[in-house]
């Protein structure tokens, strides 16, 4: 996230009194009493520490809890992941594993022709890669376009804006499992959608067992579930554009298309970049909804990268941790490049 996106002036626009309004006073007073007592109790630990090590070094005391968790559960696994990627066998404890060099990577990249998964030894991996590329392309494009349209519409003078904003946002709150189940129910052979098709005199379609339909619905459902979030970000970006610019444009006789093209779009660009990058990073990791909706099928038409890692490392009868780790290294590098891209773009926006 670019620093510029975090302007404190924007955070402060959060209504600060909302919390107090929704909570009875007695409860909040009770809670703050408890908070005070707990914090005072900690003073008994931190006070003496400060007397021993001095004010300057207290900084370390404050970072340690977070850093400890971070080191043990994020950094250490990241390093271990490389170790796994270069070792073989099915044992989980590092000491039991044998060093195999780049064998796992060679297996993953052993292909006659990279464009044809059938010629690869680990063809599922390559199918997963191509599926993921396909998914990311369509999902991110579709989502950005639809969220932009929705944000532009919500930004118009409309009645019940709060209501419509909530309507578009609500699916964001639903868990991927719930989303997957709702849509499986709708797309079922005897589901609502097929009932509608029959009503129009069309033959029912088994949506989730036909390759192209399954891929389409995975993209559709994931846009459905996440769109509201990006709409909100874009809406905030739109509302940050000064109205004077449009008024000035009107005086100069600018038409609507020009106002959009030369005022809205350029000023919305930084927000758009954030949205695109966030959406990209999430799309690359697509897993849980698909897991419920199609389970990766039909065949492996909707099997994506994370599912490949999960199934190779955890779900199969033999747990091939090395191969899974090698695949996550590939995924990790992809995400790292995307993150760097975001930081780079953020920097550039900040500079201008």
């Amino acid at each position, binding site marked *: 996230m670019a620093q510029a996106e*975090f302007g404190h002036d924007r955070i402060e626009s959060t209504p600060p009194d909302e919390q107090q309004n929704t909570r009875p006073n007695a409860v909040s007073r009770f809670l703050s009493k408890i908070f005070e007592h707990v*914090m005072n109790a900690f003073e008994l630990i931190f006070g003496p520490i400060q007397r021993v090590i001095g004010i300057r070094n207290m900084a370390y005391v*404050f970072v340690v809890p977070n850093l400890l968790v971070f080191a043990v559960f994020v950094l250490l696994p990241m*390093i271990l992941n490389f170790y796994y990627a270069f070792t073989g066998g099915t044992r989980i404890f590092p000491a039991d594993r044998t060093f195999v060099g780049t064998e796992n990577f060679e297996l993953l990249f052993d292909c006659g022709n990279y464009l044809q998964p059938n010629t690869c030894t680990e063809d599922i991996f390559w199918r997963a890669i191509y599926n993921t590329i396909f998914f990311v392309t369509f999902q991110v494009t579709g989502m950005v376009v639809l969220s932009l349209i929705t944000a532009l519409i919500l930004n118009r003078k409309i009645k019940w804006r709060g209501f419509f904003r909530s309507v578009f946002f*609500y699916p964001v709150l639903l868990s991927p499992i719930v989303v997957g189940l709702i849509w499986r129910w709708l797309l079922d052979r005897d589901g609502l959608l097929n009932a509608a098709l029959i009503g129009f005199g069309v033959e029912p379609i088994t949506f989730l067992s036909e390759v192209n339909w399954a891929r389409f619905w995975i993209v559709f459902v994931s846009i459905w579930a996440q769109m509201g979030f990006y709409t909100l970000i874009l809406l905030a970006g739109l509302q940050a554009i000064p109205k004077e610019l449009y008024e000035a444009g009107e005086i100069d006789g600018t038409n609507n298309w020009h106002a959009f093209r030369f005022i809205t779009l350029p000023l919305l660009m930084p927000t758009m970049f954030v949205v695109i990058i966030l959406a990209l990073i999430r799309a690359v990791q697509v897993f849980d909804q698909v897991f419920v909706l199609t389970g990766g099928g039909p065949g492996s038409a909707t099997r994506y990268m994370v599912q490949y890692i999960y199934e190779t490392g955890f779900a199969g009868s033999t747990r091939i941790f090395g191969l899974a780790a090698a695949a996550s290294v590939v995924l990790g590098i992809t995400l*790292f490049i995307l993150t760097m891209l975001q930081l780079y773009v953020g920097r550039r926006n900040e500079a201008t």
Partner: protein
Amino acid sequence: MIARYLTRTQGNQGPALADVLTYAYLAFGTLIMFGPIVWLLFSSFKTESALDRFPNRLLPYSQVMVQVEGRDEPLPLYEVIMEDGTVKQLVQFGRPMGNQARMIDPSNPEAFIDVDIDRRRPINEVSFAWRNYTEPLTQFNFLRYFSNSLFVTIVATFITLTINSMAAFALSKYRFPGRDVIFIIIIATLMIPISVILVPAFLVITELNMNNSLWGVIIPGAATPTGVFLLRQYMLTIPDELIDSARIDGATEWRIYWQIILPLARPALAVLAIFSVMWRWNDFLWPLIVLSENEVFTLQIGLNSFRGQHDTQWHYILAMTVLTLLPITVVFAFLQRFITTGIATTGMK
């Protein structure tokens, strides 16, 4: 036209057509976004046979059952066109034999009437099949899963807020050797999700004996780079003079942290709290790997395994899905404005 319509901005008074299109879009959007959930809600109250009915109806209809004297079970009620053209309401006794159904007039339970099956039509009424909810609750241990999820969400959010805000305080208000290195490492991992380090993270959990423990779900995700980053950026805006004058008054660093920094960082803390609750309540992949015993399942994992066991019993699955989405919906209904503005202003997830 579309381009022109979309480019209209707030405050312009334009042709009515633009407004018509706006509301048409919003209405269509509402149908697409909300329709599936409403459909789920209604479907969850349908009996198994009503669900099988195709094409489907929106409201949960089921056949009226009548208790007839001398029979133990209630019998299904039909509307029958009699030979002489009159219409009577009769109940059916047993299954039809061939194309003849044996019917009974409820007012005269002794006499059987044989009727052609094409001449009868079931009488339906709207009724809610609460059994969908009550019956599976023995296998779908909703309360247990719910309390596990609640525990994970609350404790994890609390820990996340505490340790992230402490770290953010140190990173924003102190100069110390190593500060920049720590910050860069945190930034660099901002976008590395747990799915990338699944295998070794699982090993660490196993080594620490946290398999099948809710703590194994809670702790690893607590040191969120997102949270540290978000809070640090916010705390940078708190003036240093406040801290300096507190120090002159003899306040300890800990007191400065909880009596000055935390209250001033409340908006950012609230946003992080909302994110954390959403992440934790809906988290799936990591709990799926850590938890394998039914006792410790969270709501999402419980629903997933329930789905596995009852693959075809949709009337149960739908009801349990509704139960799962209920809590977050209630929370959203109360804090709706707060949540949407909070997310819009930070743009983080």
